[in-house]
């Protein structure tokens, strides 16, 4: 609209100028051919007008298709690359860190996949419908409401307190098909010693939840342990620091690789004190709690991976 207005204004100005200089030139009659500049501006105006009318017509005539297209476009826009993560990974690759080049590619073309902001509910919509069906069967099976009633509204987000009921619920609700890829709800037996990285309150569990910043239903790939900024983060178990980085969603984070293909991730740190490549032991301080990246308050976002599969860390941490 504005461009049209400006173009039209441009033509008007041109005309006025034409009139003012009329003393030197004979006034043109209407039938006289337009000068090239005027013709170009007129063509631009017609093209803009046509485009505008055509777009409005398409929107009115094919509302569903346009909405679908709009959805697709905004989804594609949201997958924008994480510039901060790209630069950080490039910098680390330059410092000779192995695997950082892959991170560059990851940050450019699969920006959100490494972050907690991923898998939206829209992507698993049909399964969510099945979920409510699963809830119905569950209700039917347990007529004596009592405990289950309280757990029910949180069914999509197994939160701390109803641990017993929620975990059994989780098995029913999260059948393999409505879980995002690379997520396992089974409790793996770790054959090494481990400790809780930060003793804090559990503010968000593993599973679907309403995203605190973006507002939509998304899978949360770790647990959030609230603690004051600067609280020491202890390493989960013996291992090697394989990545220290920074991204717009994770903020300052580090990844420690342990025996047996396990790895733990610590995000939103105010400071990472361990150096990349360093050997660390269980309980050793590796970072400090903060609220860098996409966080609404100081907390540790803790993830546990086994060969690329996200595990529920709640089985291995004790919360305050």
């Amino acid at each position: 609209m504005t461009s049209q207005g400006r173009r039209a204004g441009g033509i008007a100005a041109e005309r006025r100028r034409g009139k003012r200089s009329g003393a030197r030139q004979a006034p043109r009659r209407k039938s006289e051919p337009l000068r090239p500049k005027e013709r170009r501006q007129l063509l631009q105006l017609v093209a803009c007008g046509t485009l505008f009318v055509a777009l409005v017509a398409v929107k009115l005539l094919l509302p569903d298709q346009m909405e679908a297209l709009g959805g697709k476009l905004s989804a594609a826009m949201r997958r924008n690359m994480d510039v901060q993560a790209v630069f950080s990974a490039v910098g680390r690759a330059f410092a000779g860190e192995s695997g950082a080049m892959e991170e560059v590619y990851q940050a450019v073309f699969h920006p959100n996949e490494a972050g907690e902001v991923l898998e939206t509910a829209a992507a698993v919509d049909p399964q969510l419908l099945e979920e409510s069906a699963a809830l119905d069967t569950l209700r039917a099976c347990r007529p004596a409401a009592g405990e289950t009633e309280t757990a029910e509204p949180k069914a999509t987000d197994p939160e701390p307190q109803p641990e017993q009921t929620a975990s059994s619920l989780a098995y029913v609700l999260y059948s393999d098909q409505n879980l995002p890829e690379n997520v396992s709800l089974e409790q793996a037996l770790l054959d090494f010693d481990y400790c809780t990285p930060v003793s804090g309150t559990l503010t968000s569990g593993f599973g679907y939840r309403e995203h605190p910043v973006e507002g939509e239903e998304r899978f949360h790939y770790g647990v959030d342990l609230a603690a004051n900024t600067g609280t020491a983060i202890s390493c989960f178990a013996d291992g090697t620091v394989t990545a220290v980085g920074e991204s717009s969603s994770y903020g300052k984070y580090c990844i420690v690789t342990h025996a047996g293909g396990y790895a733990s991730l610590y995000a939103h740190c105010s400071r990472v004190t361990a150096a990349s490549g360093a050997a660390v032991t269980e309980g050793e301080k590796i970072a400090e709690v903060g609220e860098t990246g996409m966080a609404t308050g100081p907390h540790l976002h803790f993830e546990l991976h086994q060969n690329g599969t996200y595990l529920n860390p709640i089985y291995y941490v004790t919360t305050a």
Partner: protein
Amino acid sequence: MSQRPKDRVRISPGFFLLTAWFGAVNGWRLLAVVLGAAALHELGHCLALSCLGAGIGGLRIGMSGAVLEVEGRLSYGGELLATLAGPAANLAWAVVLTALDSQRWTMAVGAHLTLAVFNLLPIVPLDGGRALYLLMAWAAGPGAAERVVRWSSGVTAVALAAGLVFLMKETGGSLWLLPAAVGLLISAGKRIFL
């Protein structure tokens, strides 16, 4: 030199828009890092120019980057040095920052490296394209240099754009790389066809 500073530095409104947008999307800290890297890049050019005894006529900053206008004439070799001084400044900063602390300034190092590598692409308005032109003009004359640069610009821009579009299609990621690819194609196209 007699010009007022207002005329010597021209900043297009598009640049402010782009900057504001980038800051809003990626945060002001990252914006500062990128602008800082760009400023040090231009400073590299300026330093080389003043070392070579050439004056700086003006600075134009637009959406696609900054352009320094040089007062007076330089030899091919001198201009080549001044052209390469920008990316070289970025590389030097990357090396220095990494040497100081390999963990702390990874983001700034990344920004410097990205800027240096991007500017060294052999596409015409970029430093790499200009350097290639100067090198060829020095070795084989301006006519041959013009032809070589047209080809290198066209081929690189088309290959890059095709690669980006392919990767975007494959991964469904980073729609924002598209304007960059289109911009490169347009500027290379301008040099080839106009």
